[in-house]
């Protein structure tokens, strides 16, 4: 008999041991997020337990003993009402401030982040390093380096989710979203698509490979293609004929793009916008929505002719023009 009970308990113990409780924490923010999560867990279990325990206690202590019981006629208690309004209010306020400040801190990538580009499409991830290598469903990154992912979708809304880093962001068609992380442990971690996107949503998964800096450098240069994103973008720029109007010395029908990245640009509508990835993309796919004061609206749209990956390569090229210009000027 005890043998049966013992093996039953062993079974339960094995099952319980097989159940992980905490996912791997492999980024700089993971521990902070987990602290908040476990504090909330403690609050939840405490109050749930306290309510259940109180109910049990009252159920037993005040169980009906006879049909002629005369229970107390209590209307309420203002002090109690205030107490159990204010105390939960304070708990909520504390959690709100804690969670919000953590979120705020996590929302701004450090200035020196390495940028990697992500394109989601049904049902795979295309990742593009600025140095050139492209990956499908895999992301190689160096450890202890802040990485910023700039992401867009070719079709429907997807979501880039790495549980081990505690980061997630929707990936939207027609615009760029971004997240950042800094991995703290080498290893292999899940990438999941976190927004239902159709038939093979559950197969739109991959791996992040966090490597030591030396391994990462070796991986970067080991690939067959050594052309950087900017170089690919330059070839595309010329192939599509952009260079016929956007002549670098400004003599073409379109504005020179040398050094424009990062500067504010005043549009014909009067508003001023910074020249960032979003503006450059908009200029490529919908040029008539970004008119400049001194140039006629003759730029054709390239929507449908190039995909989001190629847009990002062109963006990288335009960015690089700024760097060259600054280098030229600093010489």
């Amino acid at each position, binding site marked *: 008999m005890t043998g049966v009970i013992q093996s039953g308990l062993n079974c339960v113990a094995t099952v319980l041991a097989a159940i992980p409780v905490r996912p791997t924490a492999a980024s700089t923010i993971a521990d902070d997020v987990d602290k908040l999560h476990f504090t909330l867990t403690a609050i939840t279990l405490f109050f749930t337990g306290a309510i259940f325990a109180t109910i049990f206690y009252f159920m037993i202590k005040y169980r009906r003993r006879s049909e002629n019981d005369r229970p107390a006629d209590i209307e309420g208690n203002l002090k109690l009402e205030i107490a159990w309004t204010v105390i939960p209010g304070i708990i909520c306020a504390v959690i709100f401030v804690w969670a919000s400040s953590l979120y705020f801190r996590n929302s701004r990538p450090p200035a020196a982040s390495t940028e990697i580009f992500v394109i989601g499409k049904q049902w795979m991830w295309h990742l593009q390093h600025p140095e050139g290598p492209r990956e499908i469903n895999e992301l190689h990154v160096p450890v202890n380096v802040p990485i910023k992912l700039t992401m867009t979708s070719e079709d429907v809304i997807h979501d880039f989710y790495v549980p081990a880093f505690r980061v997630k962001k929707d990936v939207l068609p027609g615009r760029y979203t971004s997240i950042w992380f800094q991995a703290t442990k080498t290893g292999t971690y899940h990438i999941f698509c976190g927004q239902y996107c159709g038939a093979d949503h559950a197969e739109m998964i991959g791996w992040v490979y966090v490597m030591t800096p030396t391994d990462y450098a070796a991986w970067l240069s080991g690939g067959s293609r050594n052309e950087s994103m900017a170089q690919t973008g330059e070839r595309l720029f010329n192939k599509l004929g952009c260079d016929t109007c956007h002549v670098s010395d400004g003599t073409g029908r379109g504005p020179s793009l040398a050094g424009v990245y990062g500067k504010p640009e005043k549009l014909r509508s009067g508003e001023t916008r910074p020249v960032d990835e979003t503006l450059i993309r908009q200029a490529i796919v919908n*040029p*008539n*929505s970004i*008119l400049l004061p001194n140039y006629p*609206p003759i730029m054709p749209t390239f929507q449908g002719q190039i995909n989001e990956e190629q847009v990002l390569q062109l963006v990288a090229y335009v960015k690089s023009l700024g760097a060259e210009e600054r280098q030229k000027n600093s010489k």
Partner: protein
Amino acid sequence: MADLAAHSAHPPGFAHQFEEMDQQRAAGNLGMWVFLVTEIMFFGGLFAAYTIYRSLHPQAFEIGSHLLEVQFGATNTAVLICSSLTMALAIHSAQTGKSKSTIIGYLIATMILGAAFIGIKLYFEWYHDYVEHLVPGINFVIRPEWGHSGSQVPMFFCFYFFMTGLHALHMVIGIAILTVLTIMTARGRFSSEYYAPLEISGLYWHFVDIVWIFLFPLLYLIGGRYGSGVH
């Protein structure tokens, strides 16, 4: 116990779930007001979406707005305002105990004005838009002279047709209600004591009028037509 006697003393049109005629009238009025609140939320969702897209594509919406025939919109506005007047007069006639034919006259005037509204809209506006290839999803043609914002002009017309179409549907329902009311009046169902259905339907009709008062400037009067405006 007192109910049974009271029941037989109640006027025709009294509904059994109520205790007093006053209660019934108050309930009917409140019911119609609550219904109008739901209609505000219904149209409100559309107005919100319209406002957002208008701020995103101001040039395209201005082009679209200028393609509408403002004279017909303005005429229709006047037609509807008059119909609200005749509706109010119909109710007032019932309230002050005027003859059946007076009430019916005003009701029919309201219906004619409502039908005129629908007719002007259908023929002079929508049919004209169809001929001009301005119906999204059916025969829309983007004109080169619209320039760079041309691809967004169908969006304006989508909202135009949906909002005015929904409004027109409410008008048609209103005319149907008025038909029923006319028949009821002819059968002598109303008096200066009991005219609640007229009153409630009047509320509905005025609401449909007010929706148009909002629609007209939003759709037809973007950007000014006589000089200034968004470039």
